[in-house]
């Protein structure tokens, strides 16, 4: 029975990770066509390195991800702090809206945004992407920070005020230190969401502003190549590191 359990767990993890491990191995395999191991080489990474179009897409994605993450986390944080002090009744409707935004498929949100930008006259490009990315990051940010803030006691804040702290001081020295791990975690997750999004960006990127996931998508449709293996490996590793850090932070209690 114990063996059976191990085999089952092993099978699941094999199913999940074998493709990714093979992907990483082929990205450092020194051959274009053969499946057989021909020695370690960073040649495919070098080819990516000299591709200027790819660099442009990469920087666009990073810039977009950072902007979306910072704006949505700041807005989300301030909203969470406020919600923390408002009465339960008021929150209900707001949460219902957030849940709706989470469960609506990316595809529907993508085309809805396409329609919206088309009619409002906002040109497709960086601005439209940024607006949409902030919008779909917000619910995740609010949930991440909320799940931490709800473990706190509001009286911590009020006792600081009673002891003569100003409101700013009570926030910076009492609430924020307790929230930092959740804030960083939200920031990283928002960046990852934005950095990896394909479906929504697909509709609203416009012809001139190329971002990394869309470049990958168009390359994937053309077929499997070693350069693409390398590119996918890099993207996967970046997201993986961010997710691991975010997850570690979530568990930290100061």
């Amino acid at each position, binding site marked *: 029975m114990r063996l059976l359990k191990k085999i*089952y*767990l092993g099978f*699941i993890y094999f*199913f*999940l990770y074998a*493709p990714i491990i*093979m*992907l990483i191995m082929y990205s450092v395999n020194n051959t274009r066509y053969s*499946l057989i191991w021909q020695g370690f080489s960073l040649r495919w990474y070098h080819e990516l390195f000299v591709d200027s179009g790819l660099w442009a897409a990469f920087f666009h994605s990073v810039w977009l991800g950072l902007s979306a993450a910072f704006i949505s986390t700041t*807005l989300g944080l*301030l*909203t969470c702090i*406020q*919600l923390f*002090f408002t009465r339960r009744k008021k929150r209900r409707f*707001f*949460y219902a*809206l957030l849940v709706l*935004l989470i*469960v609506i*498929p990316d*595809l*529907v*949100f993508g*085309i*809805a*945004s396409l*329609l*919206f930008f088309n*009619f409002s006259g906002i040109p497709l490009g960086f601005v439209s992407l940024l607006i949409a990315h*902030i*919008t779909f990051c*917000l619910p995740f940010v*609010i*949930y991440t920070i909320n*799940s931490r803030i709800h473990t706190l006691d509001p009286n911590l*804040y009020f006792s600081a005020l009673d002891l003569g702290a*100003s409101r*700013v001081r009570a926030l*910076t020295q009492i609430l*924020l230190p307790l929230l*930092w791990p959740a804030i960083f975690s939200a920031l990283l997750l928002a960046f990852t969401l934005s*950095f*990896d999004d*394909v*479906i929504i960006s697909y*509709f609203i990127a416009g012809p001139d502003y190329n971002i990394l*996931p869309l470049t*990958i998508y168009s390359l994937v449709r053309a077929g*499997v190549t070693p350069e*693409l*293996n390398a590119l*996918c490996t890099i*993207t*996967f590793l970046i*997201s993986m590191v961010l*997710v*691991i850090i*975010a997850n570690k932070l*979530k568990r930290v209690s100061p």
Partner: protein
Amino acid sequence: MSASGFIGLLAGKYCCPMKTKPIAFFITFTWLSIFSFLPMLLILIASFLSKDSLNLVTFPFTLDNYSHLLSGPFANILLRSIAAAFLTTGGCLLLAYPFSYLLIKSKHQSLLLILIIIPFWTSSLVRTYALLSILKFKGIANALLLKLHFIETPLNLLYSNTAVIVGLIYTLFPFMVLPIFSNMEQFDFKLLEAGQDLGANRLDSFFRIFLPNTAPGITTGCLLVFLPAMTLFYIPNILGGARSILLGNLIQNQFLVFENWPQGAATSVVLTLSIVLLLSFYRRPPKEFVN
């Protein structure tokens, strides 16, 4: 000024409890209304308009887009998508439920859990590509099977409905595990002992104690798998053949290939309405899924 000081100042000034108006909340609320609910409303309106090659949509109001959906290939594709989504959800559930239980009981839980959280957040496009690269005609899966003499000629593993289902299960599996896991984590295993003391056998314990108590996790998981399964258009595009078009691909094509926006909008409205219908069976907000 330090970052913490800056945010504190902002927060103190604009969202201080009780005293002033909740500006940050107001901004977020307005933002979401303008950039997510207004667009949804636009879809609804567009779905009743006619197609125009110049301006994409035009008056007069019409119900044609919806009546077109009843005829034509749409009903067929809708049924196929629902079937595919059911198969995916069922497959994920069958794999994930026993898996989550083993995860709860495992000694290496934190490591095993982070290995599920990573694919939850990372790009499913990249993971689909990884699957593509091992399943392709000259890929490692075929090479391995040939080498082990299980098969004589390479199999065509890709470009079929099966490949699409496998791809969907592969991509969406973590979305089933995490809600079930976090729900099972809160289950009090002493209940099972209590049940046994009161004379329940193993079947009773499972069906009358464990299953009902972990049902909320199953519901959340099924929602998180079922909805994307119908709309992740790039998985059928990458792994499927010409005939494995699902609802997501249909909507994508209506918008970007045929440029028939009203028709695409009508299709999305039907999709969204069926989702709302599904959700009405389910009231609690899926808090589990942020951890």
